[in-house]
Structures are given as structure tokens and as C-alpha cells.
């Protein structure tokens, strides 16, 4: 579906952002930003809505990261996720879930 195309890279490119991104370290496990979100109810629902392929890719990255963490290693540098290539694949789904939740909350407040 057209409206669910994910954003790639940062919203606004900045060297500070790039530095912070690389400092955070998750990219050295080959993870993307959306792999590291705290799994609250919204995120869980958004993950459930992911198309099969994106869902499998996410699981693969998470499992690989767990394995790397267990063996106390990181990926070779050419496989690190780059600041410019980080795909926010969950964002469109998550935004929709949040909007739906807010709609429900608004309704409960006003009726």
C-alpha cells in the first residue's frame, strides 16, 4: 500500500546526529532504529501489522544481534547499518496505531 512506504535515513541530516547514531552502537549489531524500540502495546500492535517480509527481516536482525551479543562480538564494519541507510520501516504502522489509540482515548474522554 502506497501510504506505508518507509522513510530511509534521518529526517534531517546532521553531523551531530550521525555521531550520536554511531555512538549508540546498535548499528554495529546490524540493527535498525526501529528494531530497538521499547515494545509497548503500540509497538507490539504495529509489529503485528507488518507485512510478512518486513516482519521476518526484523526477526532475523534481532536474532542475529542476540547471537552477536551472546558471543561478545560485533559485525565486520562493512555490515554495520549506516546512518543514511537506517530504514524506519515501522514508523508508518506505528503512527497509525498511535492515531487510532488517540482517537479511542478522545472518544472515551468526550462521550
Amino acid at each position, binding site marked *: 500500500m502506497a501510504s506505508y512506504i518507509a522513510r530511509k535515513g534521518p529526517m534531517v541530516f546532521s553531523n551531530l546526529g550521525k555521531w550520536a547514531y554511531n555512538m549508540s552502537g546498535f548499528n554495529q549489531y546490524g540493527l535498525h532504529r526501529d528494531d530497538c524500540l521499547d515494545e509497548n502495546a503500540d509497538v507490539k500492535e504495529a509489529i*503485528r*501489522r507488518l507485512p510478512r517480509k518486513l516482519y521476518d527481516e526484523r526477526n532475523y536482525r534481532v536474532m542475529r544481534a542476540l547471537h552477536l551479543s551472546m558471543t561478545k562480538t560485533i559485525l565486520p564494519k562493512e555490515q554495520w547499518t549506516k546512518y543514511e541507510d537506517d530504514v524506519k520501516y515501522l514508523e508508518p504502522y506505528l503512527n497509525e496505531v498511535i492515531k*487510532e489509540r488517540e*482517537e479511542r482515548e478522545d472518544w472515551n474522554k468526550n462521550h
Partner: protein
Amino acid sequence: MACNASKTNLLRAIAKRGYATCPRPVGDTAAINVNVLDNKLVVATADASVPVTRVSIVLRAGARHEAYDTLGASHMLRLAGSMSTQNSTAFAIARHIQQVGGTLISWGDRELVGYTVETTSDNVETGLCYLQDLVQPAFKPWELKDNTKTLLNQLDAVSTKERAIELVHKAAFRRGLGNSIYIPRFQLGKLSNESLLHYVASNYSPSSAAVVGVGIDNNTLSGFAQTLNFPSGGGSAGKSEASYFGGDARKDTAGHRAVVAVAGEGGAASNHKEALAFAILEQAVGAGAATKRGNSAGLFGEAVSCAGDAPVQFRALNASYSDSGLFGFVVAADGKEIGKAVDFLARALKSGAVSDKDVARGKALLKARVMGKHSSDGGLIKQMGRQAALTRTVLDANTLIGAIDGISLQQVQAAAKKVAGSKLSVGAIGHLANVPYASDLA
């Protein structure tokens, strides 16, 4: 979303208050206004008998338009009434309509899919606001998945009688009109979001749709209809002509009961006179008892009583579609007894005989039925929706009654002869050991 379709201006509001428009008396039939918009969308309105406004959007997207790989799409469209659309969520649709005490109903048959919203007259704006969204369903993949259980429940609730009627359609028309209005079980979870949206885009178009209302002013409804956003590329699906084949469609199931539907080729709605003749014939040969737990008079009633004392449930079956139709009977009985009943009824069907007394009774019954349907708001809007979407115009009750009176005995007899001469179709479900095949009945 802007929803100014039904904004009444000040003068009209004052006029409305001043005259205190009285709803038409219950049991009376309403005059009908038909208006065709620039984009060929038909808008029809009638007065209400209760202060409740009913508005329907009727789309020519029923089961007959499904291709083999989109079988069940029209069932999903009925389900779409409870799912999110492009503009609003399922939650918003349900809650806002409920909040004003309204209801939203989706319905469908082999040719049409319709959405009807019922609200009190002063809350019609809320109803219309969400009704217009339904023209653009979203079919979000996760909602389709979440609704699998609902679909299964709906399929389990289909009675054997309905399934026998589905089967006889399948035997008679094979594809097109032969498609079931219920999703086949092998298609559960197989219809993707893309194929459903494609189905919507190719079947929803203003030139084949209709907007009808009871208890709403024609100008207001026309204004609303103008704002409807039909999906682009609308109506690209060509209509396939229905052709009658005949044959068998049988489904053996456990148990000792059997339900059998037998039919020959009936009248098409495009041929008004023939369709009415078949409708009269249906009443004449026995379309259910007129009294509670009573016996059905007419040819079929006699045939069943000749077949023996075993308890047999039956009624005439008459289905008129825009370019073809079915006429016959549905019968249910114990699997051991049903063979004889089907035999006798088929012989009655094949005899092609109908007396003038039966025709006179058939006419009276049909007229009562037409009046009954047209004098309740719920019945009226369904009639209007069907007619407006299929024939692009709506006949009021008086015209219909006049047309029924105009059908001669010969025309009804010709209808009986037509079905007697046609190849039969048999749809049967249950304990089928004694159910004859179509070739045995010929």
C-alpha cells in the same frame, strides 16, 4: 472531513418547522422522486412513514462480477461495513453512528452490494458522513486477518436451504450468476488487499451505482451524492452475460435430512412483463402458506400432498436477475422420503399448467406482497435500491400494481411453459441417496 452535503439553509429550516411535515401514514405507499446526476449516478427518494431517515448506497458489485480467483470478494464487501475505510477507522464509524442511535447495515445479493444507514431525521448528517466513506474501503491486511473468525461464523450460520439455493445457481449458471454470495472456504484468508481494492476499483462507478433515501429531501440527497468519491478507474469491469446451462451440483453431508432446490430458466428482470409473469406464477404455484402453519395452495401444494404423508417443507423459488432468472422449488424432507417429493414437484413444474383461478390468486397475493414491501420504510428502501441500481429508474407501488394487473393469463401460462421446456438444474445438500439427478427429472 467536510460534510456539508446536507446543510439546510435557514429558509428551508424555517419552512420545515412551519409546516411540521407529517410523515406519511404507516401502510401507505410513498411517491418516489428519481433524479439522475451528471455523472449518471441515480438518486431516488421517498417520504418516510416514521421520523427515521434511511439512506442506501447501492453498488453493482455483487457475486456475479467476481472472477474465479476473486470468488468471495462480494462477501468481503459486505464485511467492509465493519472495517476501516480510507478516511475513517472502523472504530469511528461504529461509535459515531451508534452515538446518534443509528445503525449501519451492509447487504448484498448476486448482483448488488449495498450499505444502508438508518438514523433519526435530525441526525442524518452523521449517518451520511460515514456512509460516504464506505465507497472507499481500505481492506487493511491485518483487519482482513482479524475478521477470519467472523467470516467463519457467518459461513457456519448459512442454512442448508440457502446452501441448496447457492448450489442450484451454480448448477444453472456455472460462473457469473452461479457464484455464491458467500465466500468459498478455500478462499478464506486468500483474498489479498490488492485484489480486493482492484475489485472495488473495477466495479464501483457512478454509472452503475445508486443512492436512495427514504425520509430525506431529494435535493439534499443529490447534494450528498455529488460529493461521493468513487475510486478512479471505476467500472472498467465488463459485465459478462449470464447464460443458462442446467445440471447438478450436489453436496453430501452427514445426517438424515436433505434439502433440494430444482429450477429451470426463469424470467429476466430486463423483460418486465416476463419477470412479473414469473412473480405471479411463483405465488400461484405456492410461495409459502398465507396463514401460519397453513397449507400452501396451488400446483406445488397439490403435488406434495399427492407424494405421501411424510412431512415435507417446500416453497416455490423465483429469482429474477437483470439478464436471466431461475424458477423452481426448494424442498426439504427426510432423506428417505425426499425422492418421491422431488419427483412429484418436478412433474408439476414440468407440466407447465396453471389454471386461471390460480393466476387470479397469484396476482392477489403478489399485489399484497408488493404493497406490504412498499408500505414499510425498510422494505421500500430495499426495493428502491435494487430497482435504481439495476434498471436506473424506480417504479412506485401504484405503477407496479397496474403492471401486475396488466399481465394476462396467457403471459403467465407462457412463463410456465418456458420453465417446463427448459433444462432443469438440481442443487442438493444433505442425505442424497434418494435425490434424483437432473437427467432423471427431464
